């Protein structure tokens, strides 16, 4: 019995039930909000020349890695049927947010102030989108 439970729960792709999916999706969006907010704050402070060494680049790199992990965490799951309607919107939102962080990192590493300003605006838009996703997920509880 234990072997069957272990074998089923260990299937790839991992297929959580509706509650498990909801929890994973909320966690991923919440993590992504944190990483996008960190990146926007870092870019804004970098534009104001408030960092020493490569502090801003390292901070953005860590935010980028964590953002990819959050996006991959959800996209690698098998959504339950009840979650299909919002699935594309969720995964696209997470992927776009992670991409926006990557573009911000590239601009800051290149010391390209103009592109960095554009990236900060893009991060603000992604943040608003993630907050809408977050509200929708909460409402679906």
């Amino acid at each position: 019995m234990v072997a069957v439970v272990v074998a089923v729960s260990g299937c790839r792709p991992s297929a959580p039930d509706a509650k498990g999916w909801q929890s994973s999706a909320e966690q991923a969006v919440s993590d992504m909000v944190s990483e996008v907010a960190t990146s926007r704050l870092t870019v804004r402070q970098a534009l104001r020349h408030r960092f020493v060494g490569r502090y801003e680049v390292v901070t953005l790199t860590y935010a980028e890695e964590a953002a990819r992990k959050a996006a991959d965490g959800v996209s690698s799951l098998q959504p339950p049927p009840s979650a299909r309607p919002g699935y594309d919107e969720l995964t696209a939102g997470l992927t776009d947010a992670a991409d926006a962080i990557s573009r911000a990192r590239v601009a800051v590493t290149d010391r390209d102030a103009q592109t960095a300003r554009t990236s900060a605006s893009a991060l603000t838009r992604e943040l608003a989108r993630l907050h809408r996703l977050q509200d929708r997920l909460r409402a679906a509880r």
Partner: protein
Amino acid sequence: MKKVFAVALGILTAIGGFVDIGDLVTNAQVGARFGLSLAWVVIVGVVGICVFAEMSGRVAAVSGRAVFDLVRERLGPRVGMVNLFGSMAVTLLTFVAEIGGVALSLELVSSVNEVLLVPFVAFLVWAVLWRARFSVMENVLGLLGLSLVVFVVALWKLGPDWSQLAHQWVTAAKPGDETWWTWSYYAVALFGAAMTPYEVFFFSSGGVEEKWTTEEMGTMRTNVFVGFPLGGILSLAIAGCAGVALGPLSITVDSLGQVGLPVAIALGKLGLAVAIVGFVAATFGAACETGLSAGYSIAQYFGWQWGKLVRPDAAGKFHLVLVLSTVLATGVLMTTVDPILVTEVSVVFSAVALPLTYFPILVVANDHDYMGKHVNGRLANSLGMFYLVVIVVAATAAIPLMVVTGMGS
């Protein structure tokens, strides 16, 4: 004048040496998510570490012997071995986290991947343990660790709503979007970070290294009862900065870079540079202390020659433990495990191991044969017993809370 200088130096190094990677990360995480609503845990933890550090320092000053030396003798080899095993596991885990913390701190300014920095950092730590004088190591790193006072200045410059911070502190109110489970998990983690076992091993063994006698007990107590609480203020300032600058943006702390962001916002380049010096000094100092604590614990249990004042060829086994611990920590970090994750695990397991560390200290400090007229008084015993209950509750709850909350997520 010389005595005043010694006391002042002791207090300053106690403040600077109080914070380590566990305090840096956990306080910033808690501050960003809970504001100052868990500040009371830091206060409870600081009073607890003061109570037991004073006891272990007094044991060292009166008996001229360190804690593990007496634990084995007083409680027998079997209980001593359980105590050694639990405490060593947590101390080694903390040692790994501290070396990783130094590498992460250096990565912030160099952008060299922390995994590549680990062997370099580990070699430096070992070289300091091998060659540097005990007082130089303790004082230089402790004083540089004082740079973290920059978080107090940054908090002031951020201009928070002080009445709101005070309200969070006094009411200990849980934020609405957090559960009681996560609130409790972080309370236990903060408590574990404040009362990390290595601190008392290092403190008592350091007392033996520096040949404390009963005449130095006044200085020792001043260092503990003034230096540690002031060090606790640094912890609260780190939490306060994260609560003011990161919390409102829904930022949860998962990298060391995020811990320093509030300082960059408030004070710019200069402030951030000072904070990074503080990060490096605090983690490097703690790496040396945990490395030595690993050597002290094993050598004292087995009755080997130990200490930095003993010639290395006379304390070969002690130095071998230092080398092996350093190699082990390097090996673990070279697997690319996230040092922040190691830190999070180490503070929780610190909480689990607390009874194994603090119960024997209470027993030895109550033994008339060892302590004579300096045996625990009524106040020390009341506080010791109270903390033993708190410690057992925290130790029992730590693992279940870690599982239930998925490590606080």
